[in-house]
């Protein structure tokens, strides 16, 4: 390669590497702040900002959803399989909301450690399948559970 071109190639490569390292450090410094939500374990450990609005994310725990019969109040548990956070919400839940679904709740912790949500968002996972496949999977799981219980 021509020496001038080689020099330019080295210059450009080092520019890219330099910028990448700088941005890498920046992102590392920002770290946790770039997360869209905290997990219940982080909330338990006090890593979430207690006095500000933040988001907690996880799965809606099985058999934890309690609807108020008179109004739109709903209480449920969000879990990351290690810890749970109790969430209280008033309003209409997204269509995908159900037990076992990943969700994000935005709001604040009250003094009792209950999360008072002002907004609930459903998190869709990366699985796409036709209904038949999903039912077949569910049936397989039910059989497994049934066998375990016996």
């Amino acid at each position, binding site marked *: 390669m021509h020496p001038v071109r080689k020099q330019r190639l080295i210059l*450009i490569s080092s*520019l*890219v590497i330099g910028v990448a390292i700088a941005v890498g450090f920046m992102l590392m410094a920002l770290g946790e702040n*770039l997360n*869209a939500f905290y997990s219940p374990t982080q909330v338990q450990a006090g890593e979430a900002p207690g006095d500000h609005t933040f988001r907690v994310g996880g799965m809606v725990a099985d058999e934890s959803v309690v609807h108020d019969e008179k109004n739109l109040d709903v209480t449920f548990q969000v879990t990351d399989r290690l810890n749970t956070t109790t969430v209280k919400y008033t309003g209409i839940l997204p269509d995908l909301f159900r037990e076992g679904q990943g969700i*994000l709740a935005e709001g604040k912790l009250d003094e009792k450690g209950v999360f008072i949500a002002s907004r609930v968002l459903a998190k869709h996972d990366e699985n796409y399948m036709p209904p038949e496949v999903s039912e077949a999977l569910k049936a397989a799981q039910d059989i497994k559970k049934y066998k375990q219980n016996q």
Partner: protein
Amino acid sequence: MLQWLHKLASPKIFYNLASRLIPWFGWSTLLLLVYGLYGGLIEAPADYQQGDSFRIMYIHVPAAWMSMFIYLVIAFHSAVFLIWKITISDILARVSALIGASFTFIALVTGCLWGKPMWGTYWIWDARLTSELLLLFIYLGYMGLGSAIEDRRVAARACALLAIVCVVIIPIIHYSVIWWNTLHQGSSVSVMNKSAIDTSMLIPLLVMAIAFKLFYVLVVLMRARTELLFQERKTNWVRKLIQEK
């Protein structure tokens, strides 16, 4: 190989080759687009959770892939231009920017439209959405810088440098769903592992992805041809070409 590439970098040869390739790319794009849209919008089964709303992914996902792919093409050609001073590379990078910006915009808009019924919100400032929006601004900045500088040679070098510096956004967009907690889901399609998407739904998606790629090549060739004629308007081969027509 190198000699062949060098020959291709000559404006006249590139122009002639582009003129011959354009109809091929045009027809194959049309064919795959029709097949992919039919497969995705009509033939593929509805999703078990999202019903028919998931079908927006046949536009959203290929557009998002293209937004990143085109940026890599621009960065690559910018580096080639800075090192070897090949005019064609500058032209290819420059004409790609608007196409890339359009795909980024399409990805963002279709994502918002899907987000409202599925997530419950049009927009959230999570790492994936924010970095993709940043990519749109980078495209716009790149185009703005190019047209703000009168002298084309100065503009080409400034733009090339900007494109190369900003290429760090691409890995950030790609890995954002892994490095941070985001509302946006992880990727469903994987080369190494089994995809988390049923085959009946995956095939139209891949067809659409190829169709979008061919469409990009088609538009780049068309725009590059025009740009080339304008830049080379004072040379003999262009004069001859005009006289022949």
